[in-house]
């Protein structure tokens, strides 16, 4: 196997959590509230369905082909040519996905405080520091996740703890004013984010121990969904109806913090600490892309890829969307379908073919 390092269940769960949640908490509240309005906190719960489904499929696939990632068993299931094509589509999607993640990160930093810095400089600098982690391999990313994520989690909670005096619980009412549909419509963005659990396929073979992977995968999905619900609820309590007009409600919420008249305007600190979570997310995307590429090309090592593909990601992050507004609009309309097509359909297809092939080969046996 290309990767020598191994990770624990906790590290797997933390990496997947960061991969989904780091940018989700920035963009999910705005995108969901466009349709769901006051029911935006329900949307991630509907969205969790695709998370659970994908984790189940991926774990099932990795049980059928132990020690292999999606890129590797795609070829075993569909044959060499078709497998390579499907893997390429998935990899290309992953490159696009990674680039979008970098762009999301960059756009947020741009609009939050570095208004005049070229975005390529912002994304490039974090890409360089991610490259160190990626070059160190999965163990490094797992350890970074164990160190950074408790800090980031504490930050998410602290923001709203400091805001307790300003939170108005009554903002939650009326629940489901227009029925269940708005919240389901709003859930397409959480669906897209949670569909990224298909990336778990790259990490499962790297576990030291694989019996309880289903439990920990589900745990990670539940934690991600709970975080999204928590963030959406917190923002709803704070902002009420105007939430659908705020691009980055979490950031706006941090701006509201004022403790004892000297501890205020700490949004820069909040962003700075959020970057730690973003770092884990971006480096795990980056890592999976590189690992997948070198598996697709059946290379003995992935380390020489780090800088070239990092460069490619930065270029793609500029190409991926023309502007911030386009990106936000895409998140509520096209992107979820694109994400779900690749990340749900391909695994479902693979699992279906794999199961059918197993059954047929079994029926041929006496």
């Amino acid at each position, binding site marked *: 196997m290309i990767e020598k390092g191994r990770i*624990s269940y*906790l*590290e797997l769960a933390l990496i997947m959590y960061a991969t989904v949640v780091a940018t989700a908490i920035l963009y999910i509240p705005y995108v969901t509230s466009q349709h769901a309005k006051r029911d935006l906190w329900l949307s991630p719960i509907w969205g969790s369905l695709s998370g659970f489904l994908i984790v189940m499929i991926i774990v099932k696939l990795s049980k059928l082909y132990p020690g292999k990632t999606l890129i590797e068993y795609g070829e075993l299931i569909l044959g060499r040519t078709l497998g390579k094509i499907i893997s390429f589509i998935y990899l290309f999607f992953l490159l696009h996905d990674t680039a979008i993640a970098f762009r999301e990160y960059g756009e947020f*930093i741009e609009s939050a*405080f*570095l208004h005049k*810095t070229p975005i390529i400089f*912002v994304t490039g*600098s*974090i890409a*360089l*520091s*991610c490259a*160190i*982690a990626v*070059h*160190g*391999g999965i*163990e*490094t990313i*797992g*350890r*970074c*996740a*164990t*160190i*950074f994520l408790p800090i980031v989690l504490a930050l998410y909670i602290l923001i709203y703890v400091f805001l307790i005096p300003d939170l108005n619980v009554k903002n939650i009412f009326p629940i489901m004013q227009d029925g269940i549909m708005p919240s389901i419509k709003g859930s397409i963005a959480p669906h897209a984010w949670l569909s990224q659990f298909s990336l778990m396929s790259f990490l499962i073979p790297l576990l030291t121990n694989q019996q309880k992977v289903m439990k920990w995968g589900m745990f990670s999905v539940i934690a991600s969904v709970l975080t999204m619900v928590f963030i959406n609820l917190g923002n709803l309590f704070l902002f009420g109806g105007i939430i659908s007009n705020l691009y980055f409600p979490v950031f706006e919420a941090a701006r509201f913090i004022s403790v004892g*008249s*000297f501890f*205020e*305007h*700490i949004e*820069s*600190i909040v*962003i*700075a*600490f959020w*970057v*730690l979570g973003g*770092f884990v997310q971006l*480096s795990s995307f980056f890592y999976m892309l590189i690992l997948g590429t070198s598996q697709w090309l059946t290379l003995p090592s992935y380390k020489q890829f780090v800088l070239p593909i990092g460069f490619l990601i930065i270029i793609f992050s500029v190409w991926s969307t023309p502007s911030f507004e386009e990106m936000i609009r895409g998140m509520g309309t096209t992107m979820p379908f694109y994400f779900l097509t690749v990340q749900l359909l391909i695994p479902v297809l693979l699992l279906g073919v794999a199961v059918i092939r197993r059954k047929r080969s079994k029926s041929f046996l006496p």
Partner: protein
Amino acid sequence: MKFSGIWKKKKDHFQNIQLNESLDTLPKIPLHPELNQNIEVLKSAYKDCSDVVFREFSIGSSINAVLLYIDGLSNTEEVDQHVLKPLIQMKNHEHGAIFEKTKKEISVSDIKDIYSINDIFKQISIGNSIILIEKETKGISIGLPKWEKRSIMEPDAESVIRGPREGFIETLRVNTSLLRRKIRHPLLRMKQMDIGRYTETQVIVAYIEGIANSTLVDEVTSRLKRIKIDGILESGYIEEMIVDHPFSPFSQVLTTERPDVASACLLEGRVVILIDGTPITLIAPCTFASLMQAPEDYYNQFYISTLIRWLRYIFFFIALLAPSAYVAILTFHQEMLPTTLLLTIAQSREQIPFPALIEAFIMEITFEALREAGVRLPKQVGAAVSIVGALVIGQAATAAGLVSSPMVMVVAITGVASFLMPRYATGISIRILRFPIMIFSGMLGLLGVMIGITAIVAHMCTLKSFGVPYFNSTAPLKIQNLKDVLIRAPWWAMDTRPEFSSKDTSNLRRQSSNLKPGPSKGGGES
């Protein structure tokens, strides 16, 4: 004669070599029965060595012998008293049994037989005296070394308020005795090897068998054996050649001058490398947490030890980040400061011609220069420098409008914070890394600071010291081991050793689990 032909050839070979290589790789030259031959070879080897003494004498006034030692390394009085005198006065002398007889006459406990010229080189260099006897192919090495050594003192760099006051010295044997006096169990092993082609420095790998992981011991030994170098003058030579990541700014081996620290590390399953000629010993493996532990943590009460440990972690970040955070906030995030403070800072910066980043660089570099000057100055001049430094940094620069007074304060805090690190090596990595983060913060503000931190942490996560991850027990997380990382648990609760120690998990317990004192457990009843 055929035999002498071989001898001659060997001698020629020996002279050709001119001792140009390590004595270990030198072909073995056995002692010749002709005493004069041996003396000739030795004299040619020790040509122009005015400190090597050849004292020819005769045992019982009939058998020729020679006493060989290096002046200043051997205890000549004792040799005269217990070796030379009885041998010269010996009466009965028949050839054949003379070697055993001679040995019996020498009233010294540490004597060894030697069989080759190579052995003589080794023995004589550590201060032993050699006796070679006519018609014998064996010699006697007499262990009566004596040289000037420093007395055992409290190490200046690692002083404590509560704790033993002794420190290692330059003499290896004294250091091993200090360890042996603390850990008396025979399972304390001390493997010896000589490193250095010319210095032949004695290096001892000490570990406790059963506690230290055997693969770790093998790894340390094999890395030490790899070293081929002219000389080892200090443990730093060895450190740089055995670490896992040679380009990392972080120290991957612990160093200490204190026998109590070394013993504690031995008991945790680490390996201690003692090197002759330096009081600084190396300890492997090393983790980030162990760089933050001071010996006194374990001697003082655990509440204060825990609090001080937290203080150290906080000031680690202050030492690393204070100037860059100041630059970032002043350049990018002025809104974070309370208005009154912002006004004060703006007022004091009104006269300053430089941007905050340049100002910070000037001050930090000046501070580093003053610090370096202070280390190496003769004591008489030191006071002058500190006065000049205080005046230049503290007052004149501010009054002249070169730097603002808040900047002076930041530099001062940084300086104090870096002195809080219990190990000197930690302070060094902070000093190195402070500057790149300052540049980042000047470019990207707090974001730059964070990118610097992520890069550093990512690098530290890749580090391994002898196979043990640098953040061991934090990442990868082992909750059981956090009791000596986040806090300093009371001794009765620290019942397991760090799990890198032994593979045999049954031997992880360091004490019985029921040691917490209390009224119900006092008294004599069991």
